[in-house]
């Protein structure tokens, strides 16, 4: 009995100790929409069409001093695609494109974080979209970090990446200029 109590105290002590390399955990502030997943694709090669995913959630760990431990996980509700035109969004949700009934979620899980200095980094990870998982590379720039006025601590990034639709099995032909989609990721995390 005494032994078990001693174990429990030791365990509690270990758990309450700060980790050796305290990578801070953040929750992406989707609740108050200080984060967005926007994309753009060429229309016929004549203009940019912009859209976004309205619903997603995610977390990241970020430690400037130990960037190798940095990681990100984001899941996106594919049905929340919004290009400001209901009929197009309906089409994008259909099996001509993302087939959201079958694949309601897209997911990004980071694998590697390469610090390029000066707040810049390259994040590599796996994106699962339309049921297909492929590696993607995201160029990242830290926009800023610090205390917020309400007692919290925030860090924010901007990232860009480009996907080839066909890589994810989305083969509907939108023309030669519209084979790729550019993503613009704006992410602000609140430290937990």
């Amino acid at each position, binding site marked *: 009995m005494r032994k078990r109590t001693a174990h429990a105290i030791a365990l509690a002590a270990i758990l309450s100790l700060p980790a050796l390399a305290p990578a801070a955990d953040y929750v992406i502030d989707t609740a108050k929409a200080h984060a967005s997943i926007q994309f753009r694709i060429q229309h016929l090669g004549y203009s940019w069409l912009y859209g976004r995913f309205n619903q997603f959630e995610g977390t990241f760990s970020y430690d400037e001093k130990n960037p190798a431990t940095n990681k990100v996980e984001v899941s996106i509700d594919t*049905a929340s695609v919004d290009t*400001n*035109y*209901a*009929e197009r*969004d*309906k089409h994008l*949700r259909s099996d001509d494109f993302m087939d959201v009934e079958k694949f309601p979620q897209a997911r990004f899980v980071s694998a590697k974080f390469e610090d390029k200095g000066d707040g810049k980094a390259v994040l590599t990870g796996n994106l699962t979209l339309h049921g297909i998982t492929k590696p993607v590379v995201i160029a990242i720039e830290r926009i800023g970090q610090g205390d917020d006025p309400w007692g919290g601590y925030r860090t924010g990034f901007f990232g860009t990446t480009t996907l080839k639709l066909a890589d994810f099995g989305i083969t*509907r*032909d*939108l*023309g030669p200029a519209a084979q790729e989609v550019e993503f613009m990721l704006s992410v602000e995390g609140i430290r937990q």
Partner: protein
Amino acid sequence: MGIQMLKNTLAEYGWIAIALHWLVAVAAVGLFVLGLWMTGLEYYDAWYERGPDLHKGIGVLLFIAVTFRLVWRWSNPVPRPEPTHTAWEHRLAGIAHALLYILLFATMLAGYLISTADGRPIEVFDLFAVPATLSGLDNQEDIAGEIHELLAYMLIGLTILHTLAALKHHFIDRDRTLTRMLGCSDQSTQP
């Protein structure tokens, strides 16, 4: 005697009712075929935009035509059923006709709710625009789209039954059911 009057009598359909019947029939079947065809078009097809524009424009005009048809029906005598028809045939036909009207309106309403889901109006051939009313519901365009498709299939299914019944009356029973609606029935030659 041929049909010369515009309004219905207790014996015959008038020309207006006959014209409206066939107009609605052609438009509804045409919209069904157009709808099936246009949703399968490639992005670069010349009809990719024109098809849906036509579908919506005709749909709105059909709504007006069916509404007018109902007003006309209620402001005209309804020709008496053929004497050879049994009571249950008459009742069944009545139910089928009511269902055809309900399905027509419901299908058009669901279609309207797709195109106006984000508050955009429906343009009718540069003639006028029908404004959105109910918009912005969660997944409105998806739900309305599925209902629109389902109702369209039901409407076409019932139309086929309606057509088969008319053909059965014409070729098997040899009564005036179909010729009455074609405006070429001659009462005196019928038993």
